Structures are given as C-alpha cells and as structure tokens.
C-alpha cells in the first residue's frame, strides 16, 4: 500500500473510488475523470488511466454512460490530437455493450474524437475500429458501427472508401432488424459525406432495399431518410427516385409508416420542392388526412398549417380545407385536438375573406367541442386570428367557451384556462374583460383546489402588469381587500397571497396605503396559519416600502407576532425581523 502526502488525500481518494463498491462513489469519480487525468499527467493518463478504463466495461450502466460521455472530451487530457487515438479502445468496448444509451453515448464521443483526429490517424486507427465493429459477432457492435461511417469516410483513400461503402451496404442487409434499423437511421448522415456520383448509384440502392424491408420498424425509419437524401440529390434525381418512395410510403400497408410520413411531411415537402409538393404530395397528404387510423390523422392534422404555408391559398382552399372541415368533426377527440392546436395559424395564410368564409365556422364548432382540450387549444392561439379578422366575430362564442372551461370539473382544465387569461385579456380588450371575465378571476381565488387558487392569485398579478396599476386599483384591489374578511381562513390566506404577489407591481404608495393596514389587521387573526403568513408577507414587503414605514409599522407588528403563543408564528416573525436588521446593516 502506498502512502500519499496529506494534501493529495482528496485526489487519492477520488482515484481509489474508481473501484469502490458503492456505485455513487464510482460515479462521482468517473464524472471527475478529467481531474484524475490532470493529476496523473498526460503521459500516465495515456499509459495507465486509459487502459485501466478499457478494462472497466463490465461496470454498471450508469457508470459506463458517464464514462462514455467523459471520454468524448478527453483529448486535451491525453496530450492533444496527436494522441487522440489512445481514446478509441475504451470507447470501442463501450460500443459493444447491450445497453442502448451507453452505446449511443460512446458513438457520440467517438464521432467527436474522430472529427478532431488527424487524417492519418483516422485511417490508421479509426477506420479499422469501424470495420471491427461492423464485423462484430454480436449485433450491438454492428449497430454502433452504423453511426460511425460518416466520420470514418472523410479523408479516406479511395480504396478504403469503396470498402466502407460496401460494408455499409452489408449492414443494410444484416440479418438482425436492429442493425438494419441503425443503418436506416444513419443513412442520411453517411450520405452527406459521400461524393455525389456514389450517392446516386450506391446509396440509393441501399435506400431502395431499406424502403422495401419486410420489417415495418425498418421501413418507417427509411422515411426520415427520404427527407435527408432528397436534400442531397439533384432536384431531378430527387423527383425520380425519392418522390415515388414517399408516395408509396404514404399508402403503405402499415399505419406506423404512414404515420411517419405524416409526421415528416414538412421535411419531405422541402426535399422534393414546391412544384412536386403541389402536384404529388397534395393528393398524398389528402389521403393521410382521411386515413383510417386515428394516429395517422392526428399526425397529419397537426401539420395542416405548415403544409398550407407551402401551398398557395387557392390550392389550400380547394384541396385541404374540405378535409379540415371533416376533421373538425372527427370521431377521435385527439384528432380534433391536434387540429385545434394549429388551425388558427391558417387564418393569416388564407387572408381575411377566406378565413371568415371557410375557417370561422370551423373555429366556432371547435369552440363548442365536448372535449376541453380542443377548446383550450383554440383559445390558446387566439392572437393569430385576431390579427386577421378581429376578435369580435368570435367573441360571441368565445365567452361561453371560456366560462365553461373556467368552471370545468377537472381542475387541470381550469388551471389551463387560467394560464391563458392574460392573453385573452390583451386580445379582447379591457372593456370586454371587465364585463365578462373579471368575476371569474375572483372566483378562482376561492376554488376548492389549491393549485387553482394559487394560479388565480398569480393571474391577478399578471393582469395588473398587463393593464397597469390604476386599472388594478379599480378592478382588482377592492375585491381582494374584501376577501381578507372572509370567514374561511383559507380564503383570507389567499387574499394575503394575492397581496404579496401584487404588491411589487402596484408600487410602494398603494402598498402602504391600501395593503399594509389590511395586513396589520390580519396579524391579529385567530388562526396561527394566517399570522405566520402575515409574517412572511411582511418580510416580502420590506424591500418595497420605505424604511420609515418599516420602522414605524412593520417592525412593531412583527415584534408583536414574535411573542405569539404559537411556535411557528414566532419563528417566521423572527425570521422577518432578522431580515429587517440585515437590510438595515446593508
């Protein structure tokens, strides 16, 4: 056993704990691997620490994951890029473990290191590593290999490049679906590094194979490849080779593949360009909007606005709008909800007249939907329509919808609508708000659910910010002050909460004249919970009001509270007093 000088003790412990039985300690040491490396020096890091870590690949996944991450940024600690290759062996063994997240991290780190390596080192050590993994006995290694080709390929000799391409081709036809999935996922990335001549010939052949794979899970990953490859190909090649695949995929037997097309639609449209989008993808998209499977319609409905942005309004009205109309009364609430979350965005695209003619009825029917999420989604995007047609046309239907949501029996729904009240207020204007929604805001303060009361209090603060303190003085403050006399102590407490939130917005003067007297009064409440909340509130008021007010009113009130029979009240009163003293010293 070696002995270590006293000052080195912590670092020595850190090193020893690389092999501690406690996983937390091992994790801690691994996360500070760079410190250990610096303590050992570059040479010993290369010669001892890295080989040591290579032997460590049967540790727990969490430790391996941390190690894979650390090694990705380890080049400075082994002596710079000329020594970067020493980092490959431990990462190579991490690429073969069966836990996916560890492998992915290791591949990430290898890519990072590979992209910094010198070309000669890349050929000498990185490419052989990729080849070894690709020929690995177990699928885990081959899966990892797929993610490394795009780094290995750059800077290779032509002979090596040919070899790498043929290896990748083999991976695309691997027996294991996991490997083919990895090959499909990484095909786009690999393709970006390839010379365009090979792109057309070889990559597209691999791609074609993957798009015909018998496993749904492979084919659906090839959909992403469509977008990636489409962007790399010349426009005419893209139309010739990728477009038919997209159209086929949009009619695939498997709903999961069609779902992927719907999900990737925007990227696919970008890849094939506006002309083909109009001629070929519009029919495909219309089919997806009318798909049998609700999941596909959900994905497609969510893309309506983005897709219409690519088209002209005429085409949108002619082809897409009829489907949208159908979707607004779809049997699946999730489809309607997805539609409601984007449909308001179509208003600016279609312009005022078309919006009033075509979209408004849909908005209105969605606002009356039986499913609260649908209504909420419409309300949350109100600003987009407001700019185009003004709010008035909607407000008739809007109000009942809002009121119903505000009184929904599910508190999460109520919570969601409260979040949108400031937005609604700004869109609807003060007048409308005062008439219709003011009462609701006060009602939430007395909700049965704490989260709603809390959100209600916060809402008052946001309204005060929105409309200014003068308005708040008239419309909010009187009601809040009145609530302090509520017979229910929870409501009194919520009034205090609202005061503490509003005070910073209202400013010193109103706080002193309106709030403070009420708070002082509340400090004589019979319920201790109220009293220690007063203490907390007072503490929060200290920075807002003048020092004279603090000395005159607040301190006295707190001193009284600090002699309260209840221990909690005394505790918080003393805390507040201390902060007064602290502020005075400062």
């Amino acid at each position, binding site marked *: 056993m070696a002995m270590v000088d006293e000052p080195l003790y912590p670092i020595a412990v850190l090193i020893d704990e690389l092999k501690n039985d406690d996983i937390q300690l091992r994790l801690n040491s691994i996360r500070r691997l760079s410190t250990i490396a610096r303590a050992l*020096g570059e040479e010993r890091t290369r010669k001892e620490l890295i080989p040591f870590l290579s032997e460590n690949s049967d540790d727990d996944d969490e430790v391996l994951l941390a190690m894979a991450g650390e090694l990705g940024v380890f080049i400075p600690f082994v002596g710079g890029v000329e020594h970067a290759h020493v980092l490959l062996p431990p990462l190579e063994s991490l690429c073969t473990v069966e836990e996916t997240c560890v492998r992915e991290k290791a591949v990430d780190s290898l890519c990072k290191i590979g992209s910094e390596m010198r070309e000669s080192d890349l050929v000498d050590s990185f490419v052989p590593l990729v080849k070894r993994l690709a020929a690995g006995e177990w699928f885990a290694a081959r899966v990892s290999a797929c993610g490394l080709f795009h780094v290995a390929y750059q800077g290779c000799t032509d002979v090596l490049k040919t070899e790498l391409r043929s290896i990748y081709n083999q991976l695309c036809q691997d027996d294991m679906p996991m490997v083919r999935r990895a090959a499909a996922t990484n095909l786009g990335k690999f393709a970006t590094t390839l010379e365009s001549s090979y792109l057309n010939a070889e990559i597209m052949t691999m791609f074609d194979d993957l798009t015909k794979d018998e496993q749904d899970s492979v084919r659906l990953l090839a959909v992403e490849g469509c977008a990636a490859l489409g962007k790399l190909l010349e426009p005419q090649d893209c139309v010739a080779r990728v477009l038919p695949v997209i159209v086929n995929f949009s009619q695939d037997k498997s709903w999961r593949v069609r779902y992927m097309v719907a999900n990737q639609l925007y990227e696919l449209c970008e890849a094939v360009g506006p002309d083909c989008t109009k001629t070929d993808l519009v029919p495909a998209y219309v089919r997806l909007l009318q798909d049998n499977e609700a999941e596909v319609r959900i994905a497609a409905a969510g893309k309506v606005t983005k897709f219409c942005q690519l088209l002209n309004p005429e085409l949108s009205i002619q082809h897409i709008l009829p489907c949208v109309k159908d979707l607004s009364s779809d049997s699946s609430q999730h489809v309607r909800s997805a539609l409601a979350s984007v449909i308001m965005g179509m208003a600016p695209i279609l312009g005022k007249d078309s919006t009033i003619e075509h979209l408004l009825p849909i908005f209105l029917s969605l606002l009356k939907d039986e499913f609260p999420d649908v209504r909420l989604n419409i309300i949350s995007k109100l600003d987009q329509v407001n700019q185009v047609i003004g709010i008035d046309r909607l407000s008739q239907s809007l109000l009942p919808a809002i009121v119903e949501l505000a009184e929904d029996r599910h508190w999460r729904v109520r919570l969601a609508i409260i979040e949108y009240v400031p937005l609604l207020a700004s869109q609807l204007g003060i007048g409308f708000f005062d008439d219709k929604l003011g009462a609701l805001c006060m009602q939430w303060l007395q909700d049965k659910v704490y989260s709603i009361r809390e959100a209600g209090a916060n809402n008052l603060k946001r309204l005060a910010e929105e409309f200014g303190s003068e308005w708040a003085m008239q419309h909010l403050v009187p009601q809040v002050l009145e609530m302090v006399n509520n017979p229910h102590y929870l409501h009194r407490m919520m009034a205090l909460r609202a005061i503490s939130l509003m005070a910073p917005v209202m400013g010193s003067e109103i706080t002193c004249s309106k709030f403070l007297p009420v708070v002082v009064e509340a400090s004589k409440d019979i319920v201790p919970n109220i009293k220690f909340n007063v203490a907390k509130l007072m503490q929060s008021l200290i920075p807002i009001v003048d020092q004279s007010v603090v000395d005159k009113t607040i301190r006295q009130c707190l001193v009284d509270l600090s002699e309260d029979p209840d221990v909690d009240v005394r505790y918080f009163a003393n805390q507040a007093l201390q902060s007064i003293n602290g502020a005075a010293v400062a």
Partner: protein
Amino acid sequence: MKGGGDDAASSAAASASGPPPSLEWRFSQVFGERTAGEEVHEVDIISAIEFDKSGDHLATGDRGGRVVLFERTDTKDNVGSRRDAEQMDYSVRHPEFRYKTEFQSHEPEFDYLKSLEIEEKINKIRWCQPANGALFLLSTNDKTIKYWKVQEKKIKKISEMNIDPSKDPGSSSPLPIIANGVHADKPQDYLSKDFPFPPGGIPSLRLPLVTSLETSLVARCRRVYAHAHDYHINSISNSSDGETFISADDLRVNLWNLEVSNQSFNIVDVKPTNMEDLTEVITSAEFHPIHCNMLAYSSSKGSIRLIDMRQSALCDSHTKLFEEPEAPGSRSFFTEIIASISDIKFSKNGRYILSRDYMTLKLWDINMDSGPVASYQVHEHLRPRLCDLYENDSIFDKFECCLSGDGSRVATGSYSNLFRVFGASQGSTEAATLEASKNPMRRQIQAPARSSRSMTSVARRGSESPGSDANGNAHDFTTKLLHMAWHPTENSIACAAANSLYMYYG
C-alpha cells in the same frame, strides 16, 4: 429473419417423399428426479419450459418464482463440425444438457390497493436475443414481467490503493460527501477545474490494481415491466423485430418496447363496457415468428384470431378468425368449457398455428380459416367422464402444446404424466403415447391405421383410449403433464412432471 423459414414449409404439406418414419423415443435425461416416496414441494413444481432459439439453452420456471437454466453439453467441444457429426452419427448424438445456473426471478407480493396476493409462480419464460456472450430472457408471473441478463462476471479483487483502507478504519469513504457529490472538505483546490497540476502529473498517485481470478454466472434484472395488467398475465411473446414484445392477460394484450419499462401500448382490449356481458377471455397470445406485424391470440370460446398490427393502432378487429364450426346437435353443458384453447404456438416458419383445447390438438394453416388442417384426439377417452373432471376442476387444466422445429410433428401433455406425439406431415400415421419416466415407451399402444387426409378433410386420429387400461379409470388426474417444449432443431422434447424435468430424444 431474411430468407429463413422456408426450410420447414414443405414438411407439413409436401408429400413427394412420403411421411418420415415414426420416431422411437428414448429417455435422455432427468433433472430433479423424485425418489420413491419423496414428497413434492409445491414451490418446486415446474410451471414453464422454454428452449432458446439456438437450442443450446433451456430454461424452466417454477411455482417458487425461480428460473433454472440448463446448457447443452454435447456440442460445446466441436461446435464447428456439429452438422457433419450429426450426419455421420445421427442416432448416437442427441442433445444433452447440464445445469447452468438458477436465480430467484419473482417473489411473492401483496397488492395493498386490491388486497390481492400476487404469487411468485413463473407463468411464462421467453428467450431474447443474446448479446456479448450474455443470455437474456423475459419471465413473468401473474402481474409483472422481468427482463433478465445472465452473464459470466469476473470476480474482482482490488489491490494497490492510494489510501490504505486498514489505516483508516470505520468508513470506506473517508471524506463526507455532500448532496451534489462533491467532497465537502477543504482541499477542494485539488478537485477544482482550474487547479494547476504540475505538467507531468503527481507521480505518487496510482490507479487501483484490479486482479480477477475467477468468473461466476450472475443473473441481473435489467428491467421490470409492471402495473400494466389488471388481470393475470397468461402469455408473453417476443416480436421478430427484436425490440418489442407483447404480454397478454384475460382481457387485454399490451405491446412493449424491451428498452422502455414505464409505458406499454394496449393493442387488444376485449373487455366489455359492462363486465356482465363478458363471454370470452384471452387464453394465450403469440407473435408470428417472422412477420413482426402479425400476432395471434386464442380465446376461451375456442377461436384463434390473427391480427395485423399494420391496420390500426388498436387491433380490436381481427384480420382472420380461425374456429371450428360446432357440430350440430352435439352441444352440451361442457361444450364451451372443453372448447377453450389453453395454448397456441406458431410453427417455426410461421405458416401453421397449433392449438390445444381440452380434448384435442388442432393444426391450422394461417391461409385457411375454414377449419383446421388436422386435428388430433388427445383426451377423447375422457369424454364420458367430463362430469367428474368438472367436479374436480381438472377440466380447467391448461395443457401446453409444441411443434418440432421442422413442423413435422406436434406434441402435448396429458394426465398420469403422459404426453402424446403425433406426426403432422401429410400421410403420417405416427401417434405415440409416452410417459414422463425413465421408460417412456412403457405405456405405448400402437395406434390403429387411419384414413389418409387431405388439406380439406380433417383427419381424426388417435381416438383410441391411450394410457387407460381396460377399465378406463387408470388416470391419475393429480399427475398432469402441462408444460413441455420441443427442441428448435432436433427431435428432443423437454417436459415437466411435477418438479422433475424429463428429456427425451427420437
């Protein structure tokens, strides 16, 4: 699986070379044999048997929640030339297994919300793709599925520490650790990112030296898939895509990703809105061995439904329905009970489904939903005694069934520790009754000749009363052979008689 699977397609349907000769079954091995008079402990009774894909490993689960693994020994020494050796010396070589390891997969639990005891009994075991020399398998009890990794692990011994632990007694970690994992001690200078270490490092520091002397098999639970089933899980099955599996209970089938244990997708739900309308439950479910989008499940009404997961996310409507039309006039109180399917298995090539109900084994061609291509009488001789069987609940016994790797034979269990093997190739008359003992042919009775069958006319055979003596009452309903498995590549059967695992080869 690319390209594979055609090898066996011919066997069940082709007739060019005639049926293969009947097999003569021989005893190979027994594990956990009972000595005379030895009492069987409930926890030791085997409740699941499964070969892995290669046939090199066998797993059993028992009522005590344990999983026992066996490994094949006869191929280890000359793996390369296995096929040659088999051809040269076919009759001599047969799979032999040895005990590998065992682990406690499930423990008894109590569901406090429902006041239900959850037994530790292993209902099903399924092997997953091996990786890096480690074995992976799924095991399930009534409620919880677990994903296990069994691996050789080096036993490590650590020497050469910087700090001598013996001189610092009391704690393995001499420095207090605070919440964010940083040593809460003064010398954090050394540990801070900016501390300038000397360029050559500090030579007195050294890495721990690890020496590993021996290895041991360690089973580790990698994932637990829990809280997704309201009813008892009866089946689990891996998809050929290598990343998903299904679990089925009485009313639902859920789809999981092996790597995601906190969510599953419900793909089949037969629960009626009003439970009083319940007439049918799911009894067994299995993925198609090649097509990842297809799965089949059987019901208590004797039907098998084939599902195509491509069609919709929720597969409440089936693609194909396989059921035998009821013979007119034969209806009785027991008709529905004995029609209930206790197990289904796909053939290796995915073309056929074998189903077991109380009285028969049926072989279905998935391209023909008008009726089974063959049905084999297993318990016909019990028909007069259905009343007794109902009284003592035996009628609800769930017998498993299995197909040989080439699809040419089928097998299932029966009472008195008997099991039956039938030839499934066209023209085959093979029908053997064997006893799970060291002398399997003891009870063998020659099957009478039977009429040949075609693809459309259903052959009925084996309708003699096997195993029972002239009085017809020799059946011991307490000793039943429920669980069995056929080796994926060879004519070898593993079956469970109470706590004993018997292996036979033909």
